């Protein structure tokens, strides 16, 4: 089973990397970019086929390691 965990910065948290990327996009002349926030994507392969169990495991992974919930939110998707 394939899954994806997306980790993003909470709103209100300063994101200097996102700001730098935003600046670079603007200087490249990419039209219509209002703002950029950067984050992380984890593609995870799971053994087993129980969806509920998988979701639980992914949430545990995100809470324990993949995200720092002080500053980040995460989203779990089974693909």
């Amino acid at each position, binding site marked *: 089973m394939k899954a994806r965990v997306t980790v993003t910065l909470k709103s209100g*948290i*300063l994101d*200097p*990397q996102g700001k730098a990327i935003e600046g670079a996009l603007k200087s490249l002349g990419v039209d219509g970019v209002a703002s950029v926030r950067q984050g992380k994507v984890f593609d995870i392969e799971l053994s087993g086929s129980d969806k509920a169990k998988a979701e639980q495991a992914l949430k545990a992974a995100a809470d*324990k*390691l*993949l995200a*720092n919930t*002080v*500053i980040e939110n995460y989203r779990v998707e089974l693909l």
Partner: protein
Amino acid sequence: MKSAVLVFPGINRERDMARALKLASGREAAMVWHAETALPEGTDLVVVPGGFSYGDYLRCGAIAARAPIMDAVRDFAANGGLVLGVCNGFQILCESGLLPGVLMRNARLKFVCRDVHMRVERSDTPFTRGYNAGQVIRVPVAHGEGNYEADEETLKRLEGEGRVLYRYCSPKGVVDEASNFNGAAHSIAGIINERGNVLGMMPHPENHVEDIMGCTDGRGLFAGLVAHLEEAA
């Protein structure tokens, strides 16, 4: 003072730290590998040194914070043991939940490697008793992610409870925007936990302890810890 210096893959300041600890206490520090599950018997002080544990993968300090030895460090701290985290060590302590907040990318996105000044905010803690309150000391920094951030409520608590021990300042001791080179909230360079036995700081006091280093302003921190432990013994 029996100190234990934790060693993670990718750490590179552990020997500087061990040298400073020996200079201050006259005792060799124990080097403790991350995969260990216990600290040496009779440890008085645990030090989490600087460097780039696990290549800063995922987030600075995130993987080291989940190493087996960290459970022993959490127990040690819960029993009132003294813990000092410097640079990557500060990041590891935040990631492990021993200290609140997080160290974010420096506000101007640059890795900063130079001497900075910081003001000692109070002198009545084991980590600052070697200094006078208000004293300005010069110490080196070397980090790309030292911008301390926490939510408003946490910052309010840190300030209200006097838990900011070190703050970036000008050479004259003025805390201002210009001296806050990494953009840290409230110019925070170092904080303690609620109980006052865990300190995390970004600058490297261990690199200013001998004349040959050009400055000995870092000595006070280690001398203070030794004095505290001798008094407690």
